[in-house]
C-alpha cells in the first residue's frame, strides 16, 4: 500500500509556520524541563552510583546506614585490619581508620547554611580513592590543623577557599589545598588528618574503617550466586528495601546486603562476612564501597521525584496544545482530505499521515527543548543527602541518552496529541467535505 507522501505534511508545516512554531515551542518547554530533570537525576546518580570500587570495603556500626551515624571502636578497628582478606603492603594492611564530622557552613551569596561532611583520613585512605586528585596546594600535614576542600564545596561555601581559615572544633583550620574527585560523592567533602580531627572533636571511636581486599576475581553478586558462592534468601516484607538482594552466606542465618548487579571481588565477599568474626554479637556491618554509596540513592534527594511530577503536568498541558493545533490543521484541510480519499487513499493512510505530521511537529519541539536543556549541562549545585544528612554536590549532566529521551518525550507528546485529530481526519465524510467551501 502506498502512503501519502511525507512532503505533503512537511509543506503544510512550513505554510502554517506560525502555528507550527507556536506549537513546537509549546512542546519545547516541557521537553526542556523534562531533560533538565533527567540531567539532574543523572548527576545525582553519577555522584552516588559511580563512586567506589568492588574491592574496597567499609566497616560501619550495624544499622548505621552511613558513616555520619557510625562508630567503630579502636579495638575493633585493629581486629578489622588484621583480617586475612585485607590486602597488605609490606607488613601493613591497606586500611584507613576514618572519622566523619558534620559542619554547618554558610553558602556563598546567601541561601542559608548546609551541613558539609568533613572526613578525617590518612595517606592510605587517599590511596584507596585514586579518583581524588589534588589540583591546588598540598595535602594536610599529619598532626596539623589543615584541611583540603573539594572543588565543588570551595566554589559554593564560605571559608572554604585556598588560604582561608575554617573555624572547626575549637580552632581554625587552614585550607591548604583544593581537590577534585571527578563526579563522585567524595567531591562533596572536606578532608583532614584523621587523628587530628578525632582529637579536636574528642572522638574516642572511629566513624568507619575502610580496607582494600586482597586481589581476587571480580563478579557481580548475581554471578556469585550462579557460581554457588552465595545463596539468595527469601525477601520478606520486613526487608529494608526491595532493590537489595538479601544474600545468605553459607547455611547460617546471617545475611549480607548486596545490590544484585553491583560488582564485588571474591576476597571482598569474604570481608563482608567478617563482622561476626570480630565481635560475638555482630555490632559491625561491612559493605563494598560501591554498595555503600548506591544505597544512599534510595534515601537520597526528593528533588528528582518532584521534578518528574513537574515534567508530567507540563506534558499534559502541551498535549492539549498539540491537539488544538492538529484539529485546526485538519479543519482547514477537510477538502484536501476528501480529495485524498477520493483518489483512493484508504482511511488508514490518512490517519497515518496526520499522525506522522503531528509527530514531526512534536519532534521539532522536542529537539529544540532537548537542545535548550544543554544550557544547564555542567552547572553544579547541591542538595542534602538524607542518608548522611550532609551536602551532596552534583552537576547537571545532559548526556546523549538524556537528549534522546527528551526527543522521545516530545515525539510521544505528538502521538498523544495527534491520535484523536488524526482519527477524526480519517473519518472525514468525502462528499460533504468536497461541497463545503
Amino acid at each position, binding site marked *: 500500500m502506498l502512503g501519502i507522501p511525507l512532503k505533503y505534511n512537511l509543506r503544510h508545516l512550513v505554510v502554517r509556520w506560525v502555528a507550527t512554531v507556536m506549537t513546537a515551542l509549546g512542546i519545547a518547554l516541557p521537553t526542556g524541563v523534562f531533560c533538565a530533570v533527567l540531567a539532574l537525576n543523572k548527576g545525582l546518580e553519577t555522584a552516588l552510583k559511580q563512586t567506589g570500587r568492588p574491592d574496597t570495603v567499609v566497616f560501619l556500626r550495624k544499622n548505621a546506614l552511613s558513616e555520619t551515624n557510625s562508630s567503630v571502636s579502636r579495638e575493633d578497628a585493629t581486629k578489622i585490619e588484621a583480617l586475612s582478606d585485607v590486602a597488605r603492603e609490606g607488613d601493613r594492611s591497606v586500611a584507613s581508620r576514618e572519622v566523619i564530622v558534620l559542619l554547618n557552613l554558610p553558602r556563598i551569596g546567601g541561601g542559608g547554611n548546609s551541613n558539609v561532611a568533613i572526613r578525617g583520613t590518612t595517606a592510605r585512605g587517599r590511596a584507596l580513592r585514586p579518583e581524588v586528585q589534588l589540583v591546588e596546594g598540598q595535602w594536610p600535614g599529619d598532626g596539623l590543623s589543615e584541611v583540603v576542600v573539594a572543588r565543588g564545596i570551595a566554589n559554593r561555601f564560605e571559608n572554604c577557599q585556598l588560604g582561608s581559615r575554617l573555624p572547626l572544633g*575549637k580552632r581554625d583550620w587552614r585550607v591548604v589545598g583544593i581537590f577534585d574527585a571527578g563526579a563522585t560523592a567524595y567531591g562533596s567533602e572536606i578532608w583532614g588528618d584523621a587523628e587530628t580531627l578525632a582529637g579536636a572533636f574528642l572522638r574516642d571511636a572511629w566513624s568507619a574503617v575502610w580496607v582494600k581486599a586482597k586481589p581476587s576475581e571480580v563478579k557481580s553478586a548475581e554471578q556469585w550466586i550462579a557460581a554457588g558462592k552465595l545463596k539468595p534468601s527469601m525477601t520478606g516484607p520486613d526487608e529494608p528495601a526491595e532493590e537489595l538482594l538479601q544474600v545468605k552466606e553459607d547455611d547460617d542465618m546471617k545475611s549480607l546486603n548486596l545490590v544484585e548487579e553491583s560488582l564485588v571481588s571474591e576476597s571482598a565477599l569474604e570481608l563482608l562476612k567478617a563482622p561476626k568474626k570480630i565481635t560475638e554479637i555482630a555490632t559491625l556491618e561491612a559493605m563494598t564501597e560501591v554498595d555503600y554509596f548506591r544505597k544512599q540513592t534510595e534515601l537520597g534527594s526528593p528533588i528528582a521525584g518532584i521534578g518528574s511530577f513537574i515534567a508530567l503536568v507540563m506534558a499534559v498541558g502541551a498535549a492539549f496544545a498539540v491537539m488544538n493545533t492538529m484539529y485546526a490543521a485538519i479543519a482547514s484541510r477537510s477538502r484536501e482530505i476528501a480529495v485524498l480519499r477520493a483518489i483512493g487513499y484508504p482511511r488508514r493512510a490518512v490517519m497515518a499521515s496526520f499522525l506522522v505530521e503531528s509527530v514531526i511537529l512534536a519532534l521539532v519541539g522536542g529537539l529544540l527543548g532537548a537542545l535548550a536543556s544543554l544550557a544547564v549541562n555542567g552547572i553544579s549545585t547541591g542538595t542534602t543527602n538524607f542518608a548522611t544528612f550532609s551536602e551532596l554536590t552534583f552537576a547537571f549532566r545532559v548526556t546523549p541518552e538524556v537528549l534522546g529521551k527528551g526527543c522521545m518525550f516530545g515525539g510521544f507528546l505528538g502521538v498523544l496529541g495527534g491520535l484523536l485529530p488524526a482519527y477524526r481526519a480519517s473519518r472525514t465524510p468525502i462528499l460533504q467535505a468536497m461541497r463545503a467551501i
Partner: protein
Amino acid sequence: MNLAGLLVRNLTRNRRRTMLTLLSLASSVFLVANLEAALIHLERLPRRVGGEERLIVHGKASLRDRLPRSYLDRIRNVPEVTAAVPLMWFGGIYKRLAPENRFAQYGIEAASLRAVIPELEPIDPATRSAAPQLFEEFAADRSGALAGIELFEKFGWKLGDRIMLSSILYPVDLGFTLRCSYDAGSGMDSRAFYFHWEYLEESLGNPGFVNGVMVRGESPQALPDIIDRIDGMFANSATETHTETETALRAGFIQMLGNLQFLVNAIGTAVGFAMLMVSANTMAMAARERTSEIAVMKAIGFAPSKLLQLLLSEAAVLGFLGSLLGMLCAAGLAPLMELMLAHTNVGPLFAGYRVGAEIALMLIPAGIAIALLAAILPVWNVIRRPILTAIAHGV
C-alpha cells in the same frame, strides 16, 4: 446582540478548541499553583510551630554534636531562663526503613517537658479528651512513651501498645510502651514521639551527654540576651554551643533542601512562556478564522476599538476560566498531593499542605494577563487589515 452575547457566541462556536485551550491553561496554572503553595508552605512552616518563644541549644559544629550533661544545669541557672529540657536524638527505625514510617523521636525529661512546651496538652487518644493523669503514667513508666495524636491515628496505635525502635545513631533497639498522647492544636506539630532520656542513657551505659537543650525564656524580648549568655558561657570550652530560636532552626532545615526559591521561579517562568505560546496560538487561530467576518463587521460600522475590545475580552475570559479551573483543581487535589508527598523524605514537612486563596489572587490575574498579552498581536493583525483584502481572503 450586545457585546457580552457576541463574546459567549464566539467562545462556544468552536467548543472543542475552547475546551482544549482551557485544559491546557488549567494544567499550567495547576502546576504553578502547587509550586507556589509548596514554597509558601515551607516558608511559613518554621513560624507555625510556636517556636518563637523557645530556644534550642546545640553544638556549634552541627546538630550531631554531643554536649556534656552538666550543661543542662548550667543553662538552667542562666538569668531569665524559666525552664530547660534536655533533648537526645534517637533516629529510630519503626518497622522498616521507609519514608512513610519516619517520625521524630526525642529523649526528654518528663518533669520539665511541659514547662518548656506548655501547648503540649496530654490527651487520651481514644476519647481525645484532656487526660493529665495519663501524663503522670508516662512520667512514672521508665520505658513509657508520649506520642502525638497524629501518630496514633496514622499507625493505629492504642495506649499500652509496645513499640520497638532500632536506632541508627546508637547500637541499641529499645521497646517503648505507649502511655499518653498529646494534641498540640491546629497547625502545630502533633507527630513527635517523646520518651525518657534516662532510658536511652542507661542502655548506652550512661555516657553522660545530651544532643541539645530546649530552653524557655521569661519573655520573647529576653531571648537575645539569653542566647548571648548561653553561648558566651560555653565559648572557648571543649564543646562550644550555638543557640537559636526553634523557628531559626527549622528554617535552616528547609534551606538544606537547596535553593527552592530559584527552582520555583525558573520553572514558573518556563510554564508562563508555555502558556503564552498556547494562548497566542489559540487566539491566532480564532482570529484567522474570522478574518472575513471581522471585515464585514467593520464594513457595517463597528469601530476598530470596539472589535479590539471584543476579541481581547474573549482572550481575557479564556485566561480567567483556564486559571480558575487550574486553581480549583489545585485546591481540590491538595489533600491528595499531601498523601503522595507523605511517601517521600520530605513528607513530614508537607503535613497540612493546602493551596490557599492567596495563590488564586496571584495566579488568576497572571493568567488573564498572559492571555491578553498573547492575544494582542494576532488580534491587531486581523483588525488592521483593509476590509477588501480581508473579505477576499475569506472567499
